[in-house]
């Protein structure tokens, strides 16, 4: 597949340029419904490039792309290895599907005269997320992080038309997110002061040559805190439930599927590539903090999810728990020589992106029909909106980790990794989390299928296909992976071994 011809060696930069140009032009070229068509086209192009890039990297290894032709390590480098390509494809692919969904959903959530700006922010957010993933330069990473964060604050605030609390959610996220980003900036500054370089590969080389001193240790600490905020790792998740449940539904789907995943990617990149030294990838206290927080996230997130009164909040707290699984796999990844934990972690990034993205889209469908997705309004919805409800159940089964769903495959690897690395207690915690996930999923099932329907004079017919199809594409993809996990496992384990191998 080489349809780009001579352009093909510019693939990495195209991945950022396409959505960026799309974003800038969006308010100019497109008003009203044309705005969607423009955004959709942009996303199709982006996703195609991301797929092409992944295939290329699988066949011929990582790609380094010096921006503007400057010699490395002085110029800014784009560096795409298998892990970056996977995450970029997840962002672009899920972004494409959610863009399809947004066509219908934004009509009732965003004022007409804001469409152009909405799509502009939307594409910029995706630009930023992809930029983080493919950059090889630490400071560039910070800039990309801020591009995505700032646009996401704006996107969340656009939920004000449906729920004015979206504004406060966006404000709180902005404050916490900016502090998190500032911590990352400090960390990058400290690393620069020790090494005099910003290129990630170069940083790794130079850090390997010097003893870990107070500066490097505090850089690690700042990174840990900043990234913890960005990936909503318990107990730094406080911004997330409100932001996810009040944002426009398409935005919630996009964020849940991609934004925190990119945060986790940054953590993997920093801890396993940049900061990796001979004495260990993660220092012992870091492992303890990360795995402790992850374990607490699993239990706290799932238990809190079971007590929520609306589907959106339930899903948001469930995300807190699921991020716990991913971080857990990452945190103990280095002590598992077989690579199962890290593979499980990467697999869970993919499967959780699909499942949770799909689930948030379903939650949005309920909002679209009923104006809310509080549980007391959802009673008996299983009969009235069978396809949407079935999608929620299928996604929920994935969160539990029932065999036949993508969630099972990733948990299987994660569990094996936990056993292999001698953490059976953490494995028990993961399994407990699954049981708790069954409890919260079953709350929905009981309400939707066993309670008599409520009469509130609202239209309860099934959602339009424009929303249903994208939701089912994501959920369906997670089921397909559940049954045919072979290729995904292969890619994820390759990415995991590169990441672990890169630690020396």
């Amino acid at each position, binding site marked *: 597949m080489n349809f780009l011809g001579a352009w093909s060696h510019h693939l990495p930069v195209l991945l950022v340029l396409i959505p960026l140009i799309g974003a800038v032009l969006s308010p100019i070229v497109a008003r009203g419904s044309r705005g969607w068509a423009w955004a959709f086209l942009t996303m199709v192009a982006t996703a195609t490039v991301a797929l092409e890039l992944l295939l290329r990297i699988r066949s011929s290894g990582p790609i380094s792309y010096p921006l503007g032709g400057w010699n490395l390590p002085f110029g800014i480098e784009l560096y795409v290895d298998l892990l970056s390509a996977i995450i970029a494809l997840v962002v672009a692919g899920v972004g494409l599907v959610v863009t399809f969904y947004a066509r219908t959903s934004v009509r009732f959530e965003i004022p007409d005269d804001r469409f152009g700006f909405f799509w502009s922010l939307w594409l910029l957010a995706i630009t930023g997320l992809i930029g983080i993933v493919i950059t090889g330069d630490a400071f560039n990473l910070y800039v990309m992080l801020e591009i995505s964060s700032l646009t996401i604050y704006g996107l969340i605030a656009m939920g004000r038309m449906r729920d004015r609390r979206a504004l406060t959610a966006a404000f709180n996220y902005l404050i916490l997110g900016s502090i998190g980003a500032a911590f990352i900036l400090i960390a990058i500054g400290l690393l620069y002061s020790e090494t005099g370089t910003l290129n990630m590969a170069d940083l790794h080389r130079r850090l390997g040559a010097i003893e870990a001193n107070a500066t490097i240790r505090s850089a690690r600490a700042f990174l840990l805190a900043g990234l913890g905020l960005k990936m909503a790792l318990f107990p730094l998740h406080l911004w997330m439930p409100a932001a996810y449940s009040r944002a426009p539904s398409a935005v919630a789907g996009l964020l849940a599927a991609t934004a925190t995943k990119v945060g986790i990617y940054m953590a993997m990149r920093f801890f396993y590539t940049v900061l990796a030294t001979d004495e260990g990838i993660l220092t012992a206290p870091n492992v303890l903090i990360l795995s402790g927080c992850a374990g607490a996230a699993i239990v706290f997130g799932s238990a809190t999810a079971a007590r929520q009164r609306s589907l959106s909040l339930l899903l948001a707290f469930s995300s807190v728990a699921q991020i716990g699984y991913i971080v857990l796999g990452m945190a103990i990844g280095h002590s598992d020589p077989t690579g199962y934990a890290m593979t499980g972690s990467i697999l869970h990034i993919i499967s959780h992106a699909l499942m949770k993205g799909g689930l948030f889209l379903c939650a949005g469908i309920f909002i679209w029909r009923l104006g809310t997705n509080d549980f007391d309004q959802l009673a008996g919805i299983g009969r009235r909106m069978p396809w949407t409800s079935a999608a929620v159940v299928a996604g929920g*089964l994935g969160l*539990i*980790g*029932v*065999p*036949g769903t993508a969630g099972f*495959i990733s948990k*299987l690897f994660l*569990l*094996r990794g936990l*056993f*292999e690395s001698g953490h059976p207690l953490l*494995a*028990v915690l993961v*399994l*407990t989390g*699954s*049981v708790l996930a*069954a*409890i919260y999923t*079953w709350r929905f099932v*009981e309400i939707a*299928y*066993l*309670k*008599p329907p409520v009469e509130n004079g609202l239209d309860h017919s099934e959602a339009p296909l424009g929303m249903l199809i994208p939701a089912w594409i994501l959920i369906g993809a997670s089921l397909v992976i559940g*049954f*045919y*996990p*072979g290729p995904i*496992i*292969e890619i994820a384990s390759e990415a995991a071994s590169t990441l672990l191998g890169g630690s020396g």
Partner: protein
Amino acid sequence: MISLPLLALLIPLVGALLPWLLRRSPTVRNAVTLLIPLLLLVTVVKMVPTVLAQEAIEVTLISVGPGLSFALEVDALGMLFALVSSSLWLLNSLFSFGYMYPIHGNSFEGQERYWSCFSLAILAAIGIAFSANLLTLFFFYELMTFSTWPLVTHSKTAEARRSGRIYLGILLGSSTLLLLTAIIWTWIITGTLDFSPGGILASSDATPGQISMLIVLFFFGAGKSAIFPLHQWLPRAMVAPTPVSALLHAVAVVKAGVFTVLKIATSVIGTDLLIGSWGAEVVAWTAAFTILLASLIALTRQQLKERLAYSTISQLNYIVLGAVVAFPAAIEGASLHIAMHAFGKITLFFAAGAIYVASRKTSVDEMAGIGRRMPWTMTAFLIGTVSVIGLPPMCGMWSKWLLAEGMIAAHQWAFLGALLLSSLLSIAYLMPIALRAFFAAESEGSSEHGEAPWICRIPLLLSAAACLVLFLWPGVFARLAGMVG
């Protein structure tokens, strides 16, 4: 040419879809509801000669990764379970018409879901029976839990919801926390999940302590076998319509649990490792305790279905005990008991359902003298009772005989005592119902009613007849059971 084990999975899958597709033409749907089990039975029976000839039938469906795949393999034990499930499914579909239509009307609410979930549960049973490795088994095991939950909560009442929660909580909790842990642990130790005769752990370098831990995790993880303290879900599940209790909670679901246990004993752990490990000791004593406890509780229950449920718990643990004692005769008896208990117990449940259809009676007290009004039903009930107790001339005798032989061979006198004592108890909790139905006087003011409709009685009489026939010619079941282990 599609392979037979795969076909055996596809038929119930189609059966799960058809009720939704045919919702506008009930006649066609009813015909299909009988046709599908028949097709499945034919498919399964066609594989019998191959299995008896000890030829392997193997199909790899999907390869997941190194050492991981979804694959099917038909062996003697699996064939036994599949044969029982598919033949009784046919009877039970017939009985479902006779039970659901008089009680809930010809187009009862949630009808599509009911038939569809039934098919899925059988699909899961066949899948469990034919699975070639622990991954496949676990997949179908969980499928069974989820597909039977809507049947348990069929009435949607508050009680049904509560029971549904306990059902799911115990089955899912035990399988996730214990069974999955054991599976992953086995995977790490042996590097494979494929079943192999003699056990995959037998040829590994696992320490005796690890083996014992694994035994405990596996045997308690298969919570569907209703071993104490995980037996609570079974009496709770009796809130479901009687055909569901009959097929699923006397045959398919619970037998899936004990089948898993037997399969793991013979093909994962291996009987050599079981004998003499402390893990097996723990399980055996718990099973013996469960047998007696459940029998004693059964004595106190006045609701017929509940009494039958406790009887099932007790009988299931015969199989667990047989599996964990692991002497050849015990394994053979345990395998045979899967079939023999199924025929006896489903007869009893059918009878309970027929009584309910005819008279709306559920309590044991109300059934005095009912034999004069419902002679066919109660005769069948008597046959079922004799079979479950394990007396000649009914089929239940053979499996108990072999189990007892196994206990003697293993010099497990305490367990032998438990078996015999529980048989005595089962006489005490089952026999009076049948006898009082014929010989006691009807209580004052009981309603006028006659026999259940024929469509209820036919499956009931067929399964009762099977109890008798299988005593005289245990034939294929005995041969299959003899090949296990």
